[in-house]
């Protein structure tokens, strides 16, 4: 039993059932409410255990081994080392404003903003690292030896570089950070390599980028053409109102429907490119969801949430994971004998729990 040839169906298969997930999600909701939110770390863990356990990669299920306690301790540490200092800084800033030192207060607030900016980058990195280190397949896990502090700096730098040319380089920022993150990760003995290109993303980004201008110009054209159009009879003198109403509708449609649609069209391409550039040793990956799939997915989510008066929100982790796995694909072959245990740092209970930065709180 050495080479595992990938089957004809997708290498990734999800066979969870929403009814099973509902039992988990509803008891989670109950326990989260009565514990004033503290249970949510264990809730996340239970949901992931279910979702991972219902996901096949080739011939064996994934396994989530993260613990609620890890996430909880991570949260407490973030609260102590980030949350509390921020509250203190906020009080000090208020005091400084009271005492008429707005420049100092401004500087303090700016450095607070920089710190949060930096930590956001670190948190993205560490969340991915944490998830890989807790994901097992055939007894083998992933991880990274990189603590992600350097990545935090790159995150700041690349984000600012993306903004500088009037936000035109944002696609480069996104792809480049994705590549940097994944290039630091490994699974078993193999390092991931991420070589996604950003230039193919530009066409769709420009579409997204230009929507406000197109809408603005379009609206302007309607306004200008209004007095010029001599052929419009005015039996009720209501043409002006009609045009104005049309303008309002166009604007609303543009901002609440067209903009999110184009954002999804852009994001679907981004995710396809990003995953498509990913390799693990002899494996290549592909994400097959097209823009239409993403749009239908989001519309269905909205319908579910609205029709259940918001309760459906608790199914979103299930829906997200199912969407992700259903569209994931892998090619190539794996030599099972070669796939040995990851030697990356593993944090035992109570050690190096900064890895549990995976709280999404910052």
């Amino acid at each position, binding site marked *: 039993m050495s080479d595992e040839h990938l089957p004809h169906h997708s290498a990734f298969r999800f066979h969870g059932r929403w009814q099973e997930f509902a039992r988990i999600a509803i008891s989670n909701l109950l326990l989260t409410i009565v514990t004033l939110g503290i249970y949510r770390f264990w809730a996340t863990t239970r949901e992931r255990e279910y979702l991972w356990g219902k996901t096949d990669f080739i011939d064996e299920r994934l396994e989530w081994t993260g613990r609620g306690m890890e996430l909880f301790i991570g949260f407490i540490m973030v609260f102590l080392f980030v949350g509390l200092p921020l509250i203190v800084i906020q009080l000090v800033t*208020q005091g400084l404003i009271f005492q008429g030192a707005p420049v100092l207060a401004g500087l303090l607030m700016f450095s607070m903003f920089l710190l949060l900016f930096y930590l956001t980058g670190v948190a993205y990195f560490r969340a991915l690292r944490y998830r890989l280190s807790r994901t097992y397949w*055939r007894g083998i896990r992933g991880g990274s030896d990189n603590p992600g502090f350097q990545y935090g700096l790159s995150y700041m730098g690349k984000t600012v570089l993306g903004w500088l040319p009037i936000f035109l380089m944002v696609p480069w920022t996104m792809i480049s950070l994705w590549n940097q993150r994944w290039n630091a990760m490994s699974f078993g003995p193999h390092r991931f390599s991420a070589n996604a290109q950003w230039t193919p993303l530009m066409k769709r980004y420009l579409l997204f980028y230009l929507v406000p201008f197109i809408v603005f110009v379009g609206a302007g054209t309607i306004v200008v053409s209004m007095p010029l159009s001599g052929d419009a009879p005015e039996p009720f003198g209501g043409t002006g109102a009609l045009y104005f109403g049309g303008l309002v509708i166009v604007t609303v449609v543009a901002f609440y429907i067209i903009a999110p649609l184009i954002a999804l069209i852009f994001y679907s391409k981004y995710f396809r490119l990003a995953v498509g550039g990913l390799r693990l040793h002899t494996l290549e990956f592909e994400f097959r969801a097209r823009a239409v799939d993403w749009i239908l997915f989001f519309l269905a989510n909205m319908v579910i949430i609205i029709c259940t008066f918001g309760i459906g929100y608790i199914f979103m982790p299930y829906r997200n994971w199912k969407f992700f796995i259903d569209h994931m694909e892998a090619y190539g072959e794996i030599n099972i004998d070669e796939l040995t245990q990851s030697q990356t740092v593993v944090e035992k209970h109570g050690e190096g729990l900064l890895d549990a930065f995976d709280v999404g709180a910052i």
Partner: protein
Amino acid sequence: MSAFFDVAHYDGQSAVKRKVEVQVVGQQFYLAENERRSGPFAFADVEYVTRQGEADVYGLNGRDGWRLTLSGPVPAELTALLPAPRKYGGWVDRLGLGKAAIAFTLTSAVAIAVVLLSPQWLAPLIPDSVDDRLGDALVGDFGGRFCHTPAGDAALDKLVASLDDAPQDLRVEVANIDILNAVALPGGNVILFDGLLKQAGSPDEVAGVLAHEIGHVREKHVMQALLRQMGLAVVLGGVDGNSGAMVNNMLAMSYSRSAEAEADAYSMKVLGNANISPIGTASFFDRLSALDGSAGDSKDNMGIAGYLSSHPLSASRKDAFEKSIVKGKNYKPALTPTEWTELKTMCAQDRKVKSGFGFDFY
């Protein structure tokens, strides 16, 4: 030695799946695969990992990725030696979902009750030096916006002395800011804003508002509110974002209302002792509510400064002040006409004071 049925096994070193036979010897077991036999392993080191479909997965303490997957009916002798499956997390599994939910509800209720009620007992235990330092840090010289003239200061001192037996603990100032407000802050700091003095029709009105703020200081409302806010922030820290803030604000607001009522009662008592008529205060509230009926809602935008600001707007409070008038009592004005003019125009007369404009209050 008794042999048990076949189980799937990963050794955590490579991804190769093995079919092994569990051989139990007392509190230990061996894993046998054809001619190979590994072990012994102690049952005490076996950990429950997760449930995959119909199978329970076990790991071994200290062996990363080591797995035994037991599917089908497990013999009772073996089950007795294996750790119990985990469903919701340690505590909930031990108690059962129903009992745990009740226990958590009670604990949460107690925690909230402690946080809401304990500041009343704790606030008097905070040493004055802490309170003073906090007040100094927060207020300082208010960016040079406190108004001072010899005659105005004398009038203010007289007013404070008539309302309080230990005026040396208090620091009452008039700030050159044109808003209709007054605040009590830590360290016995009371700030009357110039806008309030300008709007007031008589010194009795100012005396009533000032007595209300002194009431907040004497009843330790400021420290109570601070402690309560900090406690709620900790207890509700587990609840995410908006809902936590909403609950927090609702609880804090209800306490701020009862504090307002206490301060009102204090004000009426002190005015009576000082022989100052409460009718001015009543009519002042009347005018205030006519002027800006919603002023009471904007206080939470102002952080701790606004937390205990005085907005006694409701009609019932006006009635209360009117009812506290003792018929036939020989009230005397809080200040002489000259003193009143000096106090009212103190900010206009003070050349050195900084203007309230540019003061980023709201």
